[in-house]
């Protein structure tokens, strides 16, 4: 067992342990924080498929996060007010079922990722970073100024959506849902990295010409990775909206894209469990530093800076060493 595998097991155990201890001590807010960490980690895992595996530095993943959130907000608000989403050409009703909402969130963000990816992947390097940012900003301004679903005010959903057999308003049960999804996606992402597709994608990141000579198209590989990545982040967005029972255009802002990226880099780019470590650390910092000073952003900034400058490879890279399986 390598050090990284050992570390991964510890990281995997941290969130549920925290949640269970908090449950035993009757500290529901700590469970909520652990849930938030699991959901943000999921968004990070999504980005990491494009970023770590495919080398695609997307600065616009907030677009998918927000689309997932709005999929939940729009469907649930129609269900809440008993008005259909559309009547012609065929009737579409709102829903309060999480499973349906997740499906819609995944499909919507995958389609958006397909369109954005098909256009953006024509560029590389900084241009790719900036064009993804531009798409994110477009959706942000659209969400703010489109009046139908609350504009900047966002949408409030008074009760969480339903999951068969569970009471989703109970913090520990909702945590179980979020963590369950994170576990499934982590497993899938791990398999993906080791599968033929993942290896080809990694190869395309390292040397695109060589991949072409064996008859694969880097563009197609990257596009598929971008779509999977967007869909996972969209699913995280739907869960995040359900956690807060609220969606707003903030989910689309470039700060959100930046934060998702911070989780990935903080934990370690390309490491399967990097986003889990990053999101957990970020939330821990947010809540401990916030208690120290009104100007806690200064300390957060300094800490991030130190990580980038002196802890290359992020948290996991520092602890587990520089070896990465697929590099």
């Amino acid at each position, binding site marked *: 067992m390598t050090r990284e595998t050992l570390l991964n097991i510890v990281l995997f155990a941290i969130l549920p342990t925290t949640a269970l201890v908090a449950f035993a001590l009757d500290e529901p807010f700590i469970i909520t924080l652990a849930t938030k960490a699991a959901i943000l980690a999921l968004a990070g895992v999504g980005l990491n498929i494009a*970023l770590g595996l495919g080398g695609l*530095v997307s600065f616009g993943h907030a677009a998918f996060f927000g689309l997932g959130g709005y999929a939940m907000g729009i469907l649930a608000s129609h269900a809440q007010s008993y008005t259909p989403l559309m009547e012609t050409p065929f009737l579409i009703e709102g829903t309060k079922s999480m499973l349906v909402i997740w499906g819609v969130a995944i499909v919507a963000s995958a389609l958006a990722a397909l369109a954005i990816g098909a256009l953006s992947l024509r560029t590389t390097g*900084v241009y790719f*970073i900036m064009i993804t940012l*531009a798409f994110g900003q*477009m959706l942000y*301004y659209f969400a703010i100024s489109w009046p139908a679903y609350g504009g900047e005010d966002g949408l409030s959903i008074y009760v969480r959506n339903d999951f068969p057999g569970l009471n989703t308003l109970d913090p520990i049960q909702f945590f179980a849902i979020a963590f369950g999804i994170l576990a499934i996606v982590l497993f899938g992402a791990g398999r993906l990295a080791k599968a033929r597709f993942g290896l080809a994608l990694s190869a395309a990141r390292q040397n695109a010409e060589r991949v072409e000579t064996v008859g694969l198209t880097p563009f197609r590989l990257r596009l598929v990775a971008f779509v999977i990545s967007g869909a996972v982040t969209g699913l995280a967005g739907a869960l995040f909206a359900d956690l807060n029972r609220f969606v707003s255009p903030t989910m689309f802002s470039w700060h959100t894209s*930046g934060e998702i990226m911070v989780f990935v*880099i903080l934990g370690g780019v390309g490491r399967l469990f990097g986003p889990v470590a990053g999101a957990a650390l970020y939330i821990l910092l947010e809540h401990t530093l916030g208690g120290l000073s009104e100007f806690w952003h200064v300390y957060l900034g300094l800490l991030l800076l130190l990580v*980038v400058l002196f802890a290359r490879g992020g948290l996991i890279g520092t602890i587990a060493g520089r070896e990465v399986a697929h590099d």
Partner: protein
Amino acid sequence: MSTILLIEQVLNGLQFGVMLFLMAAGLTLIFGVMGLINLAHGSLYMVGAFAAAAVAGWTGSFALALVAALAASATAGALVELLVIRRLYDRDHLDQVLATFALILIFSEGTRWLFGSFPLFLDVPAALAGPIMLPGGILYPLYRLVIIGVGLLVAAGVFWLIAKTRIGIQIRAGEADREMIAALGIDISKLYTMVFALGAALAGLAGALVGAIQSVQVGMGEPVLILAFVVIVIGGIGSIKGALVGSILVGLTDTLGGVLLPPLFATFMPASSATSVGSAVASMAIYILMVGVLLFKPSGLFGGK
């Protein structure tokens, strides 16, 4: 819409573009020479504006305020380069984005800690206040004409610096071949610090000039930063000429989009929704422009690679 109004709006678009150029020039210079994405460029803009507002408050002199803005932002830029940025040149863009994102947090909250949470006061000097009559009967604020003038002067200055001076030759050589220039005995790290401080000073100058007609507050740099990125991406990263063309394009698109789109939508929509839908599309216009340009020219209008 009358022709006069249209001309005035074109002038406004130009002026907005020139303001953007002051920001974008530094950003593109730093990227071109050092290959660095600097998200903290907006913070240097803010430093310039705050320094100008503070000095104008103490002395009452706008000229001194401008000097202070240049000095403060150049110093801040040089310090940041020495302490942080120079460790990032050989890193990938990802690390640069994260590190300079961290710098934004530090600068913003640090400024709030020093100056408080309320916006500061900085006004146009009395000699430049008020409008003047342009030929054709357009009443136009003098200060905005001055901004256009300063911006064009800076543009000329930067072109001259790059094309004609020794430093410019070194900069161009550095862009082309980093190892070679070091081998020729030129102190590359000193050159980098200078270029970074120069870019910072341009941002600070923009902050002070613009601060006089806008709001001097924490976070003022971020919207401008995003616009400046759009500009240099459209123009081609690293190209000063591209930054100038990109600035003007973005300035015109943003201004004329906001003015022309709502009435355009009103021709085929009910007036009440046309204003809000038109405004919604107008606020996305520059991003649509950017995507459009990149589809046809994936490395911008004047991008080399």
